[in-house]
């Protein structure tokens, strides 16, 4: 099961047939494992990792991303969970983590502009009960995301035929 998920995590386009061949398992077993993982919520979604800098379009239409560090006042019985889940519900919020360090949560927020993200932080996020403070870090450039480097792709430097 773990091997199947690791392969899909690297390349979600692999067909069950190919995965079955790769791992020397019956294809039915692979299909069943994937179906199980989907049903249990282990596989949440299949998606592409896109380097938007490579997409030829008006740069002003690009989304803006910011990391927001959030300090909270914990509450008896729930700790930070209720606030974290509440923050996670917003469409604009791409990820939320509970982290160690001086802050409590780290969220990733996207918006159409710096203004849109700022408004979201000041009006929605900061105003949630028990949010004590926020610190916003706008992303200027992405070098690597989800294990994929966005540096230029090097050509194959090998000679075409070698012994």
């Amino acid at each position: 099961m773990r091997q199947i998920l690791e392969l899909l995590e690297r390349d979600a386009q692999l067909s069950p047939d190919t995965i079955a061949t790769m791992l020397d398992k019956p294809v039915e077993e692979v299909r069943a494992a994937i179906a199980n993982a989907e049903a249990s919520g282990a596989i949440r979604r299949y998606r592409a990792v896109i380097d938007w800098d490579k997409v030829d379009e008006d740069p002003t239409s690009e989304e803006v991303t910011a990391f927001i560090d959030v300090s909270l006042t914990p509450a008896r019985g729930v700790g930070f969970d209720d606030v974290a889940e509440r923050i996670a519900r917003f469409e604009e919020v791409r990820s939320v983590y509970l982290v160690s360090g001086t802050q409590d949560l780290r969220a990733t927020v996207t918006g159409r502009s710096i203004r849109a993200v700022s408004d979201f932080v000041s009006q929605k996020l900061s105003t949630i009960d028990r949010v004590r403070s926020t610190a916003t870090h706008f992303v200027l450039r992405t070098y690597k995301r989800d294990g994929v480097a966005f540096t230029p792709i090097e050509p194959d430097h090998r000679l075409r035929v070698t012994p």
Partner: protein
Amino acid sequence: MRPLNDVISACPPSGIRRFFDIASEMDDVISLGVGEPDFVTPWRVREAGIYALEHGYTTYTSNAGLPELRQLICEGLKQRYGADYSWQDECLITTGVSEGLDLTLRVLLNPGDEVIVPEPCYVAYEPCVAFAGGTPVRVATRWEDGFAIDPAAIEGAITPRTKAVLLGSPANPTGAVQPREALEGLVRLAEEHDLYLVSDEIYDRLTYVGTHTCLGALPGARERTVVLGGFSKAQAMTGWRVGWICAPQPVAELAVRVHQYTMLCAPHISQLAAVEALAHADDEVTAMVADYDRRRRVFVKGLRETGLECPEPQGAFYAFPSIRSSGLDSETFAEKLLHAEHVAVVPGSVFGPSGEGHVRCSYATALPLLEEALVRIDRFLRSL
């Protein structure tokens, strides 16, 4: 002008060269003809090389190579395979297995000594024997036997001049892994006839079926076996040119002697990168090996689906399908495939007469390219 060296003049250029020239001029070629990993050296190893450069490790090392590297190599051989060579006086670092092979043969051979070379085999074996003054004696292995050596056939080739047997396992070009019993038979022969064994184990980590047998670890083998290894394949370090020889002390001592006069030492930077590779890059190696193994399964299944018979390659990163059903000889097959479908493979005949009827396909190529190559090979076979 007076004639140049007879032995070297008589040695034909590698048969691979011609295909390289054709393939280099074509666009849209999918090359299955590459004998090196498609991975770049793991970053932590490259980073160690950069660190070494930045800090000025641009000097010679001792002739035998960095003690730390030799220790790691000998510890690894011992832990992994139970082979016992002393890092102090039975191990030296070479510029790849290529130099290791050359040194070993020069040290072992006197003019006219014969070296038995089971074939099909790596293209350099026979020329290196000849350059060292020896005479290569081919012994055929058959694909029906999975290219396993037959000790009886080897015994049949032994003459009073036979000095050594030279063998690679896992093998380029066949992907064959020699069964342990065959290797044990070989060691018995070597003991009976007082032969040296030269074991090219550059692909040791790339063994997918069963486990690798280090020839030098077999009972009775140690004092007559030279094990050659390196970093090019498993650690994806071909261009760093770093390998090693582990050999009984008298052989290693003379190998260092030739090395100190001809090469002096392997590149210091490469040796330091190799230390990092052995000390800290095992996870990366394991991941690359797992990746080759998965591609191997997909590629071999795909080849068989095109109708080609393909013995299961158990190691290295080559499939060696039979192309006899096409009615073409291997060279014509490779040339036509290259021209018609722009897929480069290497004719099996390049690796010895028993390679005829096969082509070598490297699956050290990205999966989508392998899948596209399979589509093209299938189309080519249907067009015949």
